[in-house]
């Protein structure tokens, strides 16, 4: 069995590496056509993130939030629940964490910090859980309800950040700065990389074991694969329309809280923008495997850092950078999705 598993993993990995190679080739071609200094552009696009400790650290820092949101989506998708509301969940997590920390300016970091993160998890879980509850109660489509609820939540958070919580001493649209003791330890100065990357990696490993080995994880996976079978076997399938959503939302809230405490130290307007959508991308690349979320998030962050470096150091425009990123991303997700459909097709064949 172990042999089979390794073989399967290898074939998945070779497929992925091949796709990445092809997409890189296309990007190189694009740059060759569109850039006046293609050598420089290509160098910074692919090697740029590794040229300076500052870039490398920031790239790693960016992957932290993506790991959390990617995990959130992976858990939801594995259970066949659908969470498109990551943006709002992460943003509300950022706000609640900030509010808690601003309310406790004199607590020791070891007390206030966890309190803020718990608050972020709870709000994220609540926002996503709403969609789970709607689905359980009235059969509302989760894709739509999670997206709509999240869109509304973004506006509400915007109101607080730019209204009652706005810091008048700062010209940016932001809340006040959180106290020193809550700011996570930077471990790779001068970059913004902070200690929470270890937490993110540990969380991914923990989630993997949770899904594979725990009672809830098992029931969630079974519901995700075959709801009728699960119901027949006496699993409370209604519960697992809600629980995975809440867990997913909790991860998103956590991503928001960590972004505030580790990187920005305040809740700026749109501080978590992109984390939710990109989390879906990360989960797709990882094929919803919590362990694979780690490299997938790193890869995503690497692409972004490369695009930034190429813009800064070569004549690569913002548009070209985004197109290049898009090409790679499109092919890699398509490959991941193809695998998904492929296994479904096989399943159907057997079922017949």
């Amino acid at each position, binding site marked *: *069995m172990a042999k089979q598993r390794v073989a399967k993993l290898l074939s998945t990995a070779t497929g992925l590496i091949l796709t990445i190679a092809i997409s890189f080739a296309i990007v190189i071609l694009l740059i060759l056509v569109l850039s006046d200094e293609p050598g420089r552009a290509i160098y910074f696009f692919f090697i740029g993130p590794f040229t300076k400790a500052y870039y490398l650290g920031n790239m790693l820092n960016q992957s932290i939030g993506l790991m959390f949101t990617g995990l959130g989506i992976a858990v939801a998708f594995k259970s066949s629940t659908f969470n498109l509301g990551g943006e709002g969940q992460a943003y509300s997590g950022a706000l609640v964490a900030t509010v808690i920390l601003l309310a406790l300016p004199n607590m020791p970091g070891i007390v206030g910090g966890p309190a803020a993160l718990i608050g972020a998890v709870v709000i994220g879980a609540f926002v996503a859980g709403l969609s789970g509850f709607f689905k359980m109660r009235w059969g509302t489509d989760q894709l739509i309800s999670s997206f709509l609820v999240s869109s509304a939540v973004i506006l509400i958070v915007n109101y607080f950040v730019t209204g009652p919580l706005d810091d008048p001493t700062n010209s940016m649209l932001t809340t006040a700065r959180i106290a020193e003791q809550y700011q996570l330890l930077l471990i790779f100065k001068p970059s913004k990389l902070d200690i929470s990357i270890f937490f993110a990696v540990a969380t991914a490993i923990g989630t993997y074991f949770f899904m594979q*080995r*725990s*009672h*809830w994880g*098992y*029931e969630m*996976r*079974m519901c995700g*694969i*075959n709801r*009728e*079978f*699960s*119901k*027949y*076997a*006496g*699993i*409370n399938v209604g519960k697992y329309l809600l629980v995975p959503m809440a867990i997913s939302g909790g991860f998103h809230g956590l991503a928001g809280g960590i972004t505030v405490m580790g990187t920005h130290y305040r809740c700026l307007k749109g501080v978590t923008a992109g984390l939710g959508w990109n989390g879906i991308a990360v989960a797709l690349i990882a094929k919803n495997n919590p362990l694979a979320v780690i490299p997938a998030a790193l890869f995503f962050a690497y692409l972004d850092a490369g695009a930034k470096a190429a813009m800064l150091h070569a004549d690569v425009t913002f548009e070209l950078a985004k197109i290049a990123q898009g090409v790679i991303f499109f092919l890699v997700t398509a490959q991941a999705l193809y695998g998904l459909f492929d*296994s479904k097709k*096989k*399943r159907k*064949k*057997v*079922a*017949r």
Partner: protein
Amino acid sequence: MAYLQMHGITKLYPASGVLANDAVDLSVEENEIHAVIGENGAGKSTLMKLLYGLEQPDAGEIHFRGKHVAIRDPLAANRLGIGMVHQHFKLVPDFTVAENVVLGMEPRKQGLFIDRQSAVKDVTKVIEEHGFSIDPKQKAKDLTVGQMQQVEIVKMLYRNAELLILDEPTSVLTEQEIESLFATLGNLLSRGKTIILITHKLDEVTHMSHRVTVMRGGKVVAVRNTSDVDKRELSRLMVGKDILLQVNRGPTTYGDTVLEMKEISIRCRGQERPLLDRIDLQVRSGELVGIAGVGGNGLAEIEDVIGGLRGATQGSMFLNGVDVTSFSSEQLREAGLAYVPADRLHRGASLPSTVRENCIVTKHHDFLRAGVLQRRDVREFTRHLIDQFSIAASEGMPAGNLSGGNIQKMILARELSGQSNFILFSEPTWGLDIASSQFVYEKMLELRERGAGVLLISSNLDEILGLADTILVLYRGRVVGRLENTDTLSKEIIGEYMLGLRDDSHGPHETNQTEVRRG
């Protein structure tokens, strides 16, 4: 040559190993109503799927109007003038009748826009010509079931169908609607159409058809002129006489009641006939109760109610004396239910999951220590089941890699591992080969000897007659026969109950049966 000639049609489903059609010949004359009858799984639906291009035969030829034809898909069938009305209607609820009818071949304006006016006009013409009573501008969701069926027929006529296949057309209709359908069929006949009527209802055959082809086990067993046969003979042809089953059913003593249903009914809104009509049922320990019936008469519903997958709208149910009427499937499992479902590939097993995960699903709580599944225990348990039931599998394999018989063994192993004193088996040998079936039978009898109460729901008469102590026959959701399985009981008698020719009950709840006349 006949109008439609199917010759040597063979179809094998490799995944399940079922030979659905075995060198089948069917010949239909122009302008006749030709009934194709048989029990569930006799192969009649498969044959029609092949004729309508939904599936491709492995061997055999189709000649239609004197020409050899290959029918690749339903569109090709339509082009040839073959139309099919499915048992389950395929209408868009928010579209009007006219829009539904023209869907896929809409009349165009300037080659781009749908010409709604001429759509309505064309559809009205078809409706009026054939004397239907539907309004082309009405939305499909507002129609009665009978009207929806009319829309389906109009759809085929709009596509110029000359040969109409009707798959179990009366299964969802009320008596009045059936009568009106028969009138419609008569009308179509007078306009020169040819009709193939697939059914397992003998009334329809004797009232409507000119000729009848009887299928059993994927083969044609008889072709008759309807005027030359009576219902009893047809029912004998359908169920057959050869008993293959070899089991030793020893004597037994009954103990306490383990499962009891009292007046269980399922009524659906908008449907006159209940799916289950005041079912009383009792299974005692040491007793094997068989529920026989043709599919569509309430067998699946009883399975769903007992399994907790569907609530009854009326009545109550007791498991070991506990009122479990409103229990969820989860609570039922806790109350000791064990159950082998009819749909073993989807409901009974999760094919992408490993054998291990399939084996522990009903009792994974037993393998937890501090909320964590103990892998060694799971592995040991699964290996034990694999050995005990000699399942040809390894524990880490996806269940989908197993053969049908081994999947069923895996389900049996799981359901029997809990030592429940009540076990429900629904169609447990459907599609299995003889050796696997035999295995299932032995297990069922073992349980009965052990003193468990066993309920067997099956449309296979051989197994009901070979195994059950008490036999209940369902017809149209009612228990029409409650029989002790003695030596005098024969397949023919049960078959007559199953087909509604005998009825010991006091008729349906709401008596609004009208005599069905020849259209």
